[in-house]
C-alpha cells in the first residue's frame, strides 16, 4: 500500500494537504479545537475581517433550502486588530497555513487591511473577499466589475508581500474576465466560489425568510455550478485555483481537483459535521491509496475531456 503524498503548492504557499476550511464557516479556527487538532488541516481561512469590528445583520440570518442554506450574516466580525491580538497568536501555535480573509468598503480599506496584515507573524496568505453577495461593502461591486477588481487587486498587491488570493464571485457577469483581471494584477491564486445570491419566502407570513431579504446560497445544491466554474477558471488562467462549493465528501473534493483545482475549501459541511474537513482528508488519503496514486498532485486536472461539447 502506498502512502500518498498529500502536499500541494498554491503558488508559493506549500500546504501539507489540499484540504482547507472556508471563510465564514470556521469561525476564527479556535472554535474547532474540541473536535480536532488544527494542525491536521492543509490550511484554514478566517471569517472575513474588516478594519473595524462589524455588528452584522439582524436576525433571521439563515434558513435551510433543498441541499443548501441561505445566509445573510452581514459579515459580523471582530475586526482586524482583535484578530491580530486575540486570535492569531493562538492560531499560529498550530502547524497549518493560516489565511486571513478580508473585505473593505473601499479600495483604500482593502489596501489598508493588506498593509496591516503584511508583517503579521504566522500568516500564510491573504484572501480578498470581493464577492460576498450580502452587502455592498462585502464586495459585490468589486467582484462584479473586472475593472474595479483589477484596481483593488493592484492596490492590495502593492500593500503586502504575503501571497494574495482573490476569491471570485459566482454572481459576476463575466467570471472568466474577472479571473483574468485578478491574474494580470498579480494575484497569486484564485479561490472560488463564494455563495450565489438567492432568496426564500415564508409563505405563511408573506415575507422573506431572511431579514436581509436576499442571502448567499451554499452547500451541496451549488456543487455542480461550482465545479463547472472551477473548471472554466482553471482552464483560463495560469495561476493556481482553489475550488469550493458544497464539498461534503472526499469524492466531492476529487471532483474539484480533477477539473483543475490544486486544493479545496470545505465550507457548509463544517456546520453539519464539525469533523467534516478532517474526515474528508482521511477519506481522500484512503481513496488515493486504494487507487495506488502516489501523489494527490497526479489527480489535479486529470479529468479527461475534449472541449466543452456543443452538439
Amino acid at each position, binding site marked *: 500500500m502506498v502512502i500518498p503524498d498529500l502536499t500541494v503548492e498554491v503558488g508559493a504557499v506549500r500546504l501539507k494537504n489540499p484540504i482547507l476550511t472556508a471563510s465564514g464557516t*470556521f469561525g476564527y479556527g479556535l472554535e474547532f479545537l*474540541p473536535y480536532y487538532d488544527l494542525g491536521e488541516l492543509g490550511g484554514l481561512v478566517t471569517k472575513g475581517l474588516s478594519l473595524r469590528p462589524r*455588528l452584522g445583520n439582524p436576525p433571521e440570518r439563515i*434558513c*435551510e433550502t433543498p441541499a443548501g442554506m441561505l445566509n445573510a450574516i452581514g459579515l459580523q466580525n471582530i475586526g482586524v486588530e482583535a484578530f491580530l491580538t486575540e486570535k492569531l497568536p493562538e492560531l499560529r501555535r498550530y502547524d497549518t497555513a493560516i489565511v486571513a480573509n478580508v473585505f473593505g468598503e473601499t479600495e483604500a480599506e482593502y489596501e489598508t487591511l493588506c498593509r496591516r496584515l503584511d508583517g503579521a507573524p504566522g500568516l500564510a496568505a491573504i484572501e480578498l473577499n470581493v464577492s460576498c453577495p450580502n452587502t455592498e461593502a462585502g464586495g459585490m461591486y468589486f467582484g462584479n466589475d473586472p475593472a474595479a477588481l483589477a484596481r483593488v487587486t493592484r492596490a492590495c498587491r502593492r500593500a503586502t508581500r504575503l501571497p494574495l488570493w482573490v476569491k471570485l464571485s459566482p454572481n459576476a457577469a463575466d467570471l472568466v474576465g474577472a479571473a483574468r483581471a485578478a491574474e494580470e494584477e498579480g494575484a497569486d491564486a484564485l479561490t472560488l466560489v463564494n455563495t450565489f445570491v438567492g432568496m426564500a419566502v415564508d409563505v405563511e407570513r408573506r415575507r422573506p425568510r431572511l431579514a436581509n431579504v436576499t442571502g448567499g446560497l451554499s452547500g451541496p445544491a451549488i456543487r455542480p455550478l461550482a465545479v463547472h466554474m472551477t473548471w472554466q477558471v482553471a482552464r483560463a488562467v495560469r495561476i493556481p485555483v482553489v475550488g469550493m462549493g458544497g464539498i461534503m465528501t472526499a469524492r466531492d473534493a476529487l471532483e474539484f481537483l480533477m477539473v483543475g483545482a490544486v486544493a479545496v475549501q470545505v465550507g457548509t459541511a463544517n456546520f453539519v*459535521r*464539525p469533523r467534516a474537513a478532517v474526515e474528508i482528508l482521511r477519506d481522500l488519503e484512503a481513496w488515493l491509496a486504494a487507487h495506488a496514486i502516489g501523489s494527490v498532485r497526479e489527480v489535479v486536472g486529470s479529468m479527461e475531456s475534449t472541449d466543452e461539447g456543443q452538439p
Partner: protein
Amino acid sequence: MPLDVSATVVRNLDLGHGNFLMDFEAPEAFAAMQPAQFFMIGVPGAEVLLRRPFSVCGLPGTFEDSAPSTVQILYRVLGKGTSLLAGLRPGATVHVLGPLGRGFGAPRRPEAVPVIVAGGIGSAPFPALIARLRGGFHEPIVLYGARTAGELPLLDWFRANASELWVTTEDGSLGQRGLVTDPLAELLARRAARLHVYACGPTPMLKAVARLAVRHEVPCELSLEAPMACGFGVCLGCVVPTREPGSDRIRYERVCVEGPVMAAERLAW
C-alpha cells in the same frame, strides 16, 4: 467538551398531538449536562442538510421508565427535520452533537423558590431542571400554558413531579383560560422577593415573561430559540440582539454559545 456521536434510538414514544419523547443511548458524559443545554441532531441519509437543535429533556433518573444509559428529548413535529425524527424506530441511528450551549443555573440563594414558566413544547428542558432543583432541595412552582390542552405534552409528568402546578390554555380547554403569564403576574405581585424565574417557550411568551420579571426585579433566565446551522458558534446564524448591563450599545450574541439560556435583562428585543 461536546461529543459528536452516532446514537441508537431506544424508544420513540408518540405522546399524541404531534409530540414525541425519544430515548437514545448516550455516552456517559451526557449525564452531566446542564438543563437547557442542547444537542444538534441529524438523521443519516435524510433530505435535510442541517441538524436540528433539541434541549435535553431527561437525564438518567429523570424519567422512571427510561433506561439509565439513555437521555431523552421531547419534540414536536413542525417541518421536515422533526417529521424525520418522528419516523424513526427503535434501533435507528441518529447523529448527536452535544452538550452545547449554556444551561440554566442554580438559584443564587438557598431559600429561593424557582418558578418555571413553560409554553407548550417549551416545557422540554424542565424535567431535567426539576430533577436537579429537587436534588438541591428546591421545590419549584410550575406554570404550564399552551393554546390548547393537546399542546401540554408533559402535563402528567408535571402533575407527578411538581409540588405546585398551574395550567393555562388560551382556549380554556384545560386549566385556567388565558396566558401562562397571567399566573406569573399574580405570583410576582404577591411574593416576588424570593422567586427565581426559568422560562422556555415561544418568543412572544418569553418577551412577556422577561418584561414582568425585569419590572419586578426578579432573577429570570430564558431559554431562547433561533434557527441554527452549526450549534457550536461558527456560523453566526443564531444571534439575538443583547445589551451590556448599563449600556445602550447593541451587539449580537449567539444563542448556541452565549445561550440558549440568557438573563432576561440582557436581551435587547
